[in-house]
């Protein structure tokens, strides 16, 4: 029997995904599937240098090649620059004066075939003056280091200094103070669908853009500004989006500028599709970070203070780095109570591809450091890892109350304690921890961790999601939203919320793809915001439509609207359910009886913005999320002590507080496949290896990710906290569980071997040398 939650008709139980059929049958069209009459193929000309001045670009030979229809360079964009926010617009569609990372685009070609476009790119002659570069933050911060951006002294991209309470006093009063340095590597997002786009101009000032973009209203705004068009004339039609895997496929790539520009020049549709090589060499990566963390605790293991210094490699352009660094800091005050906190963040420009958001954005780095260090301190104090977590975990606030952290983060629900208890129980933790298992050259260990993530992210602008519920005269429903399902299942959840509110079935609702000409504006799919905020919009829009229909029903039944209820496609009087009519009949009456209504429900989200205001990034105060998910996890590892190869076994359990699981199997699979495996992968396998700005493993053989053999199946336990700020109590699902895997695994490796791996990933060679050093140290002691 499937587990069900709450007393609802549609939500809280397993439901089929609304997009499953289209995806399984191949009916779903992705950007790369789009073919249009007269369509041209585009290709990007890229720089071989990681840092070089562009002296001249000669496109004449390319233009002369038969079959070439247009060539564009950065100059065509008349100095246009874009960025994550107004003050950080530092990137051109194509580099004009200087390239800042290897394979940065300098030109693009449209031709009648892919081959000709590629050949033409080879004919573009670019004269470079190679410049010395900086390839990690420590090179970048050196005095006199080459500047990535001439106007950014010291290569500083982002810098924050926050203090809450008095850490120095608290350290002085602490029983135990520890300082450690942890390191997280640059990682690929790993989405299966590479960037792809088709663009065309149906009229001289009208642009149509069909791209693989998780947040279609990003290109909508950016392209309007780029081509000086009113927003009404930029039409972004959203194809199906290939799994995003928390990669936030939002930001522009060179192809997103090349296609519209080349289409404008040629008057024909232009298509570009990236290869995995393009993606793995130029797409945004997770920030590599060096986290120095100093923590003080009492004799009983109660946290007194934490100081974090985070140094990040931001790459060539600012992109989302200001937000990354904020998130890296802000989460230090949860899921454990922390009375004193200090944070210094430095994000440096380097001549590497730009870094940006990835599942578990920001929190991933510092929560890893904190949760491993917590185990180290527990051991010094002689405390069990579960015990020290329970002692520090934030209590679930009483209903109606809100917990406030020292840095002004608020939560109405916090299920972390329950998560920890459930996992400890399910793994038989104390017993398991005591039994040390060694079989031949294999050593087994189990590790614990807890994590959190903000859901319903609200940034400084355009926060609201909106929805339109159009009730057709036969009772079927069109659901229009600006929110994009990038694989997480939000289309299903939004339809389910609308169905639940309206009292109809999930199958009655047809969701439309996003089309900026018709669907309401939406911030996008990032920051675990869609279920919480687009879900609230769905609820509000459905309630608006329902109100209109209930008025009609009340007239029919000669009762007040309050007395009417709709459930399971039946409309009835609450006090006398015998007086009823089918849903279809009510809709028909509403639409056909004079004067005839058109039932359109409208709604938008307000929670994120109105409850507690917006966060102040520079001061580190306030909420970036609407509510917060919590996770606890125990993971078992098998370490081959002769080789250093670590495997995560199936003996792993996650408990997840996502508020309320609207579609429980979607939450479970998202937690397992979406984030747990990604977390295990981050802990054990994944890392871009670099040499002077060059990516050494830009393919999925050398850049390792687990396949089915290595992907352990974890058990997912639900913790229901019914958050008052989420639709039907929902919070985010899965970003938190991406953050809990790396510390759990590293803690487990220690349990198995007595070796701390402080820099991710725990690849075999690293573990091998650490084990060898440990052995030699032991021998010396003897």
């Amino acid at each position, binding site marked *: 029997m499937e587990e069900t939650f709450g007393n609802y008709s549609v939500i809280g139980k397993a439901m089929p995904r609304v997009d499953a059929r289209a995806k399984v049958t191949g009916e779903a069209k992705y950007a790369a599937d789009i073919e249009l009459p007269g369509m041209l193929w585009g290709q990007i000309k890229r720089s071989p240098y990681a840092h070089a001045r562009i002296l001249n670009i000669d496109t004449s030979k390319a233009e002369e090649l038969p079959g070439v229809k247009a060539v564009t360079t950065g100059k065509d964009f008349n100095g246009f620059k874009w960025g994550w926010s107004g003050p950080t617009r530092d990137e051109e569609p194509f580099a004009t004066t200087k390239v800042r990372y290897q394979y940065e685009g300098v030109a693009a070609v449209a031709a009648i075939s*892919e081959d000709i476009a590629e050949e033409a790119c080879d004919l573009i002659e670019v004269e470079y003056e190679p410049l010395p570069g900086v390839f990690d933050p420590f090179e970048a911060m050196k005095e006199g280091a080459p500047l990535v951006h001439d106007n950014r002294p010291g290569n500083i991209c982002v810098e924050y200094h926050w203090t809450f309470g008095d850490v120095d006093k608290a350290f002085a009063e602490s029983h135990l103070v520890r300082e450690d340095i942890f390191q997280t590597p640059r990682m690929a997002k790993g989405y299966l669908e590479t960037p792809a786009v088709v663009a065309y101009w149906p009229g001289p000032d009208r642009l149509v853009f069909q791209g693989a973009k998780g947040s279609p209203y990003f290109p909508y705004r950016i392209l309007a500004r780029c081509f000086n068009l009113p927003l009404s004339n930029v039409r972004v039609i959203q194809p199906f989006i290939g799994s995003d895997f928390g990669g936030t496929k939002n930001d522009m790539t060179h192809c997103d500028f090349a296609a519209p520009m080349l289409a404008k020049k040629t008057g024909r549709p232009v298509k570009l599709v990236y290869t995995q090589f393009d993606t793995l060499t130029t797409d945004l990566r997770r920030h590599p970070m060096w986290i120095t963390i100093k923590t003080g605790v009492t004799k009983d293991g109660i946290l007194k203070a934490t100081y974090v210094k985070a140094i990040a490699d931001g790459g060539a352009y600012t992109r989302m780095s200001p937000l990354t660094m904020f998130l890296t800091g802000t989460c230090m005050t949860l899921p454990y109570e922390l009375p004193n906190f200090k944070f210094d963040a430095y994000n440096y420009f380097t001549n590497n591809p730009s870094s940006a958001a990835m599942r578990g954005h920001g929190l991933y780095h510092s929560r890893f450091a904190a949760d491993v260090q917590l185990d180290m301190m527990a051991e010094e104090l002689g405390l069990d890892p579960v015990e020290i977590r329970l002692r520090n975990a934030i209590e679930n606030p009483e209903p109606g109350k809100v917990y406030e952290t020292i840095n002004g983060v608020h939560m109405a629900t916090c299920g972390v304690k329950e998560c920890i208890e459930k996992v400890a129980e399910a793994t038989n933790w104390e017993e398991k921890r005591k039994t040390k298992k060694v079989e031949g050259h294999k050593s087994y260990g189990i590790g614990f961790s807890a994590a959190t993530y903000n859901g319903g992210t609200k940034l400084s602008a355009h926060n609201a999601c909106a929805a339109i519920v159009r009730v057709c005269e036969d009772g079927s429903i069109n659901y229009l939203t600006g929110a994009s399902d990038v694989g997480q299942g939000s289309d299903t959840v939004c339809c389910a919320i609308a169905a639940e509110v309206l009292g109809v079935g999930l199958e009655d609702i047809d969701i439309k793809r996003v089309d900026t000409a018709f669907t309401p504006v939406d911030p996008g799919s990032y920051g675990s915001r869609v279920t919480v905020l687009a879900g609230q919009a769905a609820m509000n829009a459905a309630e608006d439509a329902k109100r209109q229909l209930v008025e009609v029903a009340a007239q029919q039944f000669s009762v007040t609207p309050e007395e009417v209820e709709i459930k399971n496609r039946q409309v009835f009087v609450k006090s006398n359910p015998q007086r009823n009519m089918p849903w279809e009949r009510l809709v028909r009456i509403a639409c056909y009886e004079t004067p005839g209504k058109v039932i359109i429900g409208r709604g938008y989200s307000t929670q994120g913005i109105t409850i507690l205001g917006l966060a102040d990034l520079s001061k580190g105060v306030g909420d970036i999320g609407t509510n917060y998910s919590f996770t606890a996890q125990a993971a078992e590892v098998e370490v081959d002590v*002769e080789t250093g*190869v670590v495997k995560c076994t199936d003996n792993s359990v996650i408990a997840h507080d996502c508020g309320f699981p609207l579609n429980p199997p979607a939450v479970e699979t998202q937690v397992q496949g979406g984030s747990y495996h990604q977390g295990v992968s981050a802990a054990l396998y994944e890392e871009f290896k670099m040499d002077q700005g060059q990516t050494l493993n830009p393919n999925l053989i*050398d850049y*390792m990710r687990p*396949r089915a053999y*290595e992907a352990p199946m974890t058990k997912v336990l639900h913790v229901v906290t019914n958050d008052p700020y989420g639709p039907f109590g929902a919070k985010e699902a899965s970003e938190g569980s991406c953050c809990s895997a790396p510390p759990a695994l590293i803690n487990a490796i220690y349990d198995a071997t007595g070796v701390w791996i402080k820099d991710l990933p725990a690849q*075999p060679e690293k573990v091998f040398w650490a084990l060898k050093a440990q052995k030699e140290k032991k021998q010396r002691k003897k």
Partner: protein
Amino acid sequence: MIGDFEYFAPKTVDEAIALLSKYKGEAKIIAGGQSMLVVMKRGLLTTEYLIDIKGIAALDYIKYDEGEGLRIGALTIHRAIEKSPIIQKHFRVLSEMEQNLATIQTRNWGTIGGNLCHGDPAGDPAPVLIALNAKLKLAGSGGERIIEVEEFSKDYLEVALEPDEMLTEIQVPTPLSHTGIACEKLMVMKGDMGVVGAAVSITLSPKDGVCKDARIVLSNCASVPLRARGAEKKLIGKVLNDSLLVEAGEVASTEASPPVDVHGSAEYRQEMVKVFVRRAATKALERAKAA
């Protein structure tokens, strides 16, 4: 992107050889394409003429005769070798090797002959076949010839095929009695190319248990599959024990000159040669004793 080429799909060995003779040196053979397409897509290999031999049905077979041994057609897919009851019974190590060769999808399309002709020193079949003392049958416009697998690899991605020649058959003799053979490789993930690997064959004298013969072959430790002859000498003529196997690993490690890449340093690989020679030898010895 893969450059343009003319494509042929011969149905017989003779047709294929005729094409090879016609386009001498300008043509490349593709079988399963599991390795070749990777290098072609990366632009490391271009060819004017591509001869796709996957359709030559006559080269897809597994035959066994106690006297003659095992004969495998060059176009037999890895998965067929892995799953063959004959091989599982008489040449277990080959089936075991195949179980960790890439993914099932690759094993279902890639061929044993294609793997050998690719000449990658990190490939799994060649070291095992060398340990098994196997031979290859090559066919060319001048007729057929037989060559030791050990003589086949010439350099990194280079094998002893004349421009008009192709591999048609792998011949594996029945091992001597009291022989045990095993292979082990370092994989981070199942099916990975071995960071390093070892195949070991040990033959014991039934009278006194002395090691009559030992063959130790390393993968990914040189530009070709590497016979660790020094390590073999450590074992031959002795009654084997654990410490001798450890020593053999240590000697093999000094014979290896492994590459350096994103999967490991040379120092780490040399350490791993010790581990994997010892592991394979231990298993081979157990099997030899049981045989």
